[in-house]
């Protein structure tokens, strides 16, 4: 096992998320949520890998569903699992009215990510879910205050999972060319005197 700092957890996760196709803004959110999971569970790396491997199989909430959520009407599942990240982003950006709570959302993919994203809000999932639960119906309820960030923890990860996440992160890197080697970092000035 390799012991990562939480900053490394966040940075690696954000890069891997971007490499898996999430937008830059969502990747930032995922990095912070990964940090949250890592302080609570040493298998955070598996959860992260599962997210990036399944990123393309999820779908975003459709407008008719989000309208139903806001109006307190019963949810209707779609053909594919809901993306936990895009669902959480919507709930965070514009929380449902109190009248719509508790809110039941059907067929959320990897719901642990929805749970982690909501930690910085005054919403939470009513029932805890397993780190690797692939799909679940979830109930969102209000809570008094957002959770305070936990410090003094580390994010352990096994080498194989780390390598797999790094390969997603590597999709955000640009290979060097001879030209960029010379120019990219600052020109060919002698720097050894």
């Amino acid at each position: 096992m390799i012991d990562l700092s939480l900053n490394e957890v966040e940075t690696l996760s954000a890069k891997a998320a971007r490499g898996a196709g999430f937008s830059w803004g969502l990747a930032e959110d995922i990095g912070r949520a990964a940090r949250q999971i890592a302080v609570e569970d040493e298998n955070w790396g598996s959860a992260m890998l599962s997210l990036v491997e399944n990123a393309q199989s999820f779908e975003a909430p459709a407008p008719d569903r989000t309208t139903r959520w806001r109006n307190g009407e019963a949810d209707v599942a779609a053909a594919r699992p809901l993306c936990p990240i895009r669902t959480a982003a919507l709930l965070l950006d514009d929380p449902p009215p109190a009248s719509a709570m508790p809110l039941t959302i059907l067929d959320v993919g990897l719901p642990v990510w929805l749970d982690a994203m909501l930690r910085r809000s005054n919403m939470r999932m009513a029932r805890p879910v397993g780190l690797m639960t692939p799909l679940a119906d979830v109930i969102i309820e209000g809570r008094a205050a957002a959770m305070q960030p936990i410090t003094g923890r580390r994010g352990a990860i096994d080498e194989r999972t780390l390598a797999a996440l790094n390969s997603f992160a590597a999709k955000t890197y640009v290979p060097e060319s001879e030209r960029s080697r010379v120019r990219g970092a600052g020109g060919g000035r002698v720097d050894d005197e």
Partner: protein
Amino acid sequence: MTAIALRPPEVVMRLQRLGAAHPTRLSFLRQLIRRATREGWRVRKDRFDLDDHGFGHAVYAVETPARTYSLVAFSTPLDDEKRSDRVIAQAWDTSYVLYDGLPDVAEIARLEANAPLQEVGRFTSRELVLARANKSVRLFEEVASALAQGQQPDEEQLLGVGYLLRTTAVYGNGKFGIADRDEIASRPELSGSFQAEMLTVWLIRSFTLDLVDHIAHRRNPIGAARLAPDLRRALGVGNATGLGMAPFLVRHPLLTHSWFLARETALARVRAEPHAGEMERKAFLQALTDLRRRVTRWYSDDSRQAAATRLLADNLDTLTENLDQLLAKPHPWDALYRFAEDRFSLEGQEACVSLLLEPHGALVDDLGDTMKADETPGHAIDGSVTCGSLRQALLDSYSWAASVDFDDPAANARFWYVSAEKLEPRLGERFEEDGAELEQPLATARDALGLAAALAQEPASNRLADFLLHRPQWRHAARRAQIVARFPYSEIHDNLIGADLRPVDILRAKLAFFGARSFDPRSDRWLRIALFSGEPLIEDVATPAPAGAAA
């Protein structure tokens, strides 16, 4: 007291002015020195196990009121051809960690196996900072030789360079496994920006001076001289900084805002003073004299910087000639600033900001505590606002960018990327190199205007949250737009991907906040600087603790 308006972001946050920034008494190394003095820190050389050639390790322990920190220094042989300031280097003359506590033998052995490897090593939460430094080879040897012959080195040559070793990276905040910033942020002595990093460099400075004394002594145990105290105090630690640091100010908008707001608030407070007291006049004159002397030793091969430095020398001559009549005016410090604003170069104006703050510690030093930020409030997006209102906020905040035509290849010439080889930020030429599709989100103005244009396609009354649900590619720009609207000094008011961008301007602004001097651009993308030159040595400030005292 007459209130003086803060210089607005459209003046302060331009790249050309950032590229003329000077350190002030609010700079981070100055804050550290004041705290160490105030709290009576104690420092001692706990170990100094170096051979005749200066290779081995040393431990310097600093006792603060609550905790002990140790600089663990390793000095290792290095072939000349492997010595490079660039981040692509793989070996260095010296390597360091700032350790949380006092390391025992086993811990030193662990660090010895990792610190010299730097990025390839692995570290723990006991390490707070990781750094390395190379000798300024020719100068280091000349100083060692002179001292070994019982002589002092040539002062002009020594102070023209200003340091014996040059750091090429000082890593904090969890890099390569070291402690997260969150773990130390609640400790008063390290809660300010970059205080752990500054403490590390302050201790490295003493190690470099002890190292050269040690080598000279081993060459000539009977007749070697020790480096004279005034030369020791004049020398700092060099630093080479490149593109890796450039995105920091963009990626930490709330922190950036807090730094600039503090400095601008300090300037406004000083300018609002109705009179100049005798003590303040004397302190100002002393600071001016010091700066004029430093400017005569400010060498750079960079023609732009050399010209700017010459102009600065002229500006300071003019200021000296006019000082008495300026300080005789009502609101004398404001008169002085206005005089500089009317007649001086940007370099001269920003030097005056630094000079104006210098005599006014009682008035401005409290602002140092505000130069930090919990960045959490910047994470949330208020998606309840309408697309129309966010678009208007963007057009207001980025009005300075309205004249930039991003369809013009010159305005869109560059892209920031992360290099697969070094995992470091780099700057590419969009129309000449591959990889622009992997551009990092640092094109702030282009993305802000792009978001405004995308919002214009939406019904103005639509909610931002719904827009971002189906256009997640704008999420980073929407988040930034809401930050910039609330924190006006959070954004650089220039195009960061234009053909005429000089990243050294961004680097200089950040380094000036650290307390750097002697800016020496080596290209448009990296520069050398000196830290702590002319400042007290840590052993001057932190009373040496008796050897063997409990840490």
